[in-house]
């Protein structure tokens, strides 16, 4: 697992599963379909990604293709900041 992915899983576990276990969550599962995040959750997720990976996310990028699964988020972060993996 990449460092991006482990940081992300830790964030999801802490904030959307309230300390539950995110390791079992399949990387391609829809976070919306799983009922893990709602509209305020997405905004929290965006703030976290901007801060943790030093990226700027525009409104037009806040779409399911970029943010609705762990795999999508990891790929999106990598596209925004190739150096994030090392961060």
């Amino acid at each position, binding site marked *: 697992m990449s460092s991006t992915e482990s940081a992300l899983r830790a964030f999801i576990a*802490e904030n959307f*599963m*309230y*300390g*539950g276990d995110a390791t079992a969550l399949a990387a391609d599962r829809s976070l*919306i*379909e*799983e*009922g893990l*995040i*709602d*509209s*305020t*959750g*997405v*905004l929290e997720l965006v703030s976290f990604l901007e801060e943790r990976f030093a990226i700027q996310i*525009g*409104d*037009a990028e*806040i*779409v*399911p293709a970029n*943010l*609705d699964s762990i795999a999508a988020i990891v790929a999106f972060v990598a596209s925004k900041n190739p150096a994030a993996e090392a961060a």
Partner: protein
Amino acid sequence: MRVEDFLRTSARRLPDKEALTAGGRRFAYGELDRLSDRLAAALASRGLKRGERVVLFMDNAWETVVAIFAVLKAGGVFCPVNPSTKAAKLAFILTDSEAAAILTLARLAPVAAEAMAGAPSVRFALAAGGSTAGFDDFEAAIADAPLGPLAFAGIEIDLAMLVYTSGSTGFPKGVMMTHQNVDAAATSITTYLENTEVDVILNVLPVSFDYGLYQVLMAMKVGARLVLEKSFAFPRAVLDKAIAERVTGLPLVPTMASLILQMKDIVPGQFPDLRYVTNTAAALPPAHIRALRDLFAGATLYSMYGLTECKRCTYLPPAELERRPGSVGVAIPGTEAFVVGEDGKEVPRGETGELVIRGPHVMKGYWRNEAANAKALRQGPFPWEKVLYTGDLFRRDAEGFLYFVARKDDIIKTRGEKVSPKEVETALYALDGIAAAAVIGVPDGVLGMALKAVVALRPGAALSERDVIRHCAQSLEDFMVPKLVEFRDTLPTSENGKVDRRQIAEEMEAAR
């Protein structure tokens, strides 16, 4: 008209016209009518009888639309339940409604199965979206359903739906709506919104919530096209869909309006097809009304007010919006609204009293709950009928337009949904270490009111804010989970020793 005839009539008139877009699939009226006929036959072949309740524990999927009409065609009563409901509450609803069946989705099946274990009335269960042990497959049930005409489903005064709503006692109450009630509400609303078959309505509100549910029913009634979305978590994606699908009607709650207005790269002129935007559940702040009118220039904005017990009470004719932005208007067409004092008589203009509603849309009562019925449905001005006491305090201006003042009870409105503080407190007390708890609403820019839990711990207990929120998230629907937790050594109590929620709320208000 019976509610299933909304779909039948439109299907006869417009068989090939697109009725529904959901989850990447498109359905014509004729197809939707056939699918629901087949599912109705499948329900009947599994023993569903006229008047029996069927819980729909589903999200905004196409299967939900089919299920609603199928239950009615089979003579049943549908009971929509929020998909974030947890097993214990779902079991309560299944038991209270004495549901004969439950229809759900594969992803929700574990919760449904746990609830069914405590609900012996449930004789069969269907799950859509994947085969699930213990559940019949939704699509296979449709495919294998017996052919031939359906049995007589019933008449207009039969119950069409049972919608559970938060009660101040902490237990949800089932609002009984007949076909006649639903038809009256849907007719009135589509009249003032001027809906026709050229409308394209985009609904992201849960179909388990009556505002979302009526988008389905009204679209089918007028032969419009319904675009069903599951969530507003990605506002940009939803608004892009509104543009791509050339949406003409966009129902909002204040939380969605607030999320839209936070977006930076959305500009006026992007929604040339949009004819109207509606808002209900709570009044929009005047600044949001102005901003929405700028953004959706060309569209008409309707401010409305309602409660599940009569679906919709009032709407503000759009021409009045400029003059009275804080008003929720007048009684919807074909109904009457009064503001009365403790004696049941109308109070003078400008004075605050309880909003009372009279009309064919008023519920038949709460399912098997005479105590609640005695409070809500009382003798009105005429001897032959009862009218609805809403529990909402209102006043009228000099011209008779209505303004929401406050709730009479402690019900909190958050994200457009009603929450009983008692229900959340009951969940909090179930957490080991909590000695006392009170739940209050605090103003929040996005949520309207955010839920705040004020708790005192038992000696030696070490619970964090996260622990408290996690516990609530495991036992309550999403919108009932407190956003904030405050720890205190003790909580004030009233003379009878109960935690004084009102005093805490008043202290907090004074401190703001």
